[in-house]
């Protein structure tokens, strides 16, 4: 993989010149990094917050890059949040295990949700939060996890939508990320 050049990304009042990475031959995407960027995360959270329904009771996300965004949104609205993990941890008891549907054959991804955390979703109105939606596989998996934990998804929020939407769930995104 070669870094070709940078691409300007703007979230509200914050602009970053991010690397363009070639994920497949002839297909380049701007690589936005929220981890380590307090200013970008706070601006994104400020802009997403009005799109979070009033009745939201808990936020749900995955590790790792959307964690600080979700933390900041949770703090703005004084809500709890739950993080589905990408690896099994030794302390997990009776976790919900959810495959992430993937467009790429052979590359599978799995989400793990400890029972103690699943209980925080049960009978709750859930907003799914992420930073970048591409195929929608992670959102679908979080939808399914919420259903299996007995919760109700009332919103799906993302900062960016990458390329064309190719899944049926409606996710709200603040901005589009081009595929170049």
């Amino acid at each position, binding site marked *: 993989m070669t*870094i070709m050049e940078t691409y300007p990304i703007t979230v509200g009042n914050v602009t970053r010149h991010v690397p363009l990475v070639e994920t497949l031959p002839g297909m380049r995407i701007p690589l936005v990094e929220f981890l380590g960027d307090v200013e970008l995360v706070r601006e994104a959270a400020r802009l997403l917050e009005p799109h979070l329904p009033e009745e939201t009771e808990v936020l749900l996300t995955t*590790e790792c890059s959307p964690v600080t965004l979700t933390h900041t949104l949770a703090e703005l609205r004084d809500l709890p*949040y739950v993080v589905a993990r990408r690896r099994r941890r030794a302390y997990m008891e009776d976790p919900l295990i959810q495959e992430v549907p993937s467009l790429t054959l052979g590359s599978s991804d799995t989400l793990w949700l400890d029972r103690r955390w699943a209980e925080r979703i049960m009978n709750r109105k859930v907003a799914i939060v992420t930073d970048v939606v591409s195929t929608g596989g992670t959102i679908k998996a979080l939808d399914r996890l919420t259903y299996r934990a007995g919760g109700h998804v009332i919103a799906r929020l993302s900062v960016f939508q990458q390329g064309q939407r190719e899944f049926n769930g409606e996710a709200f995104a603040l901005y589009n990320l081009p595929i170049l």
Partner: protein
Amino acid sequence: MRTYPVEIAGVQRELPIVKVGDQVAVALLNLLGDSELTEAAARALSERIPEQAEVLVTPEVKAVPLAHALSVRTGLPYVVARKTVKPYMVRPVTREVVSITTGKPQLLVLDGADVERIRGKHVVIVDDVVSTGSTLKGLKELIESVGGKVVGVLAVFTEGAPRDDVIAIGHLPLFEPEG
């Protein structure tokens, strides 16, 4: 379920006691999902950051919200040491550490861009719980191998044997597994 009570800067929690091996159980601190506790810990720890600190480094993923909250309070930048090499990383630097509790090797990774933010800088490591210190030792070695100088370690809790090389709010004992 057995729990262990803790208090962090006026915020109280009952931590579940969970078995993590045949011989040992721990009080499970989870800052992920608890922004109130994270902010309380950041408030308490921000007053104790060594003055010469220039950048914070935290291992993925449980301490990431804490590092973020400390960064917001102090204005110091933070860097996340990842646990896998991502395909988009440029000239990543890695180090393998063996966890004493799980016996499994674990990778710590700094992306090339983050290496540049650490080189020649006074670094403070931020973690949630420092137990055996195997991650801490690996992270220190990784930071120093790229030219950073570790000037302090901040954690919410130390665990097991008390240690004086970590600035912590409190200490967690280890527990016997039940039954």
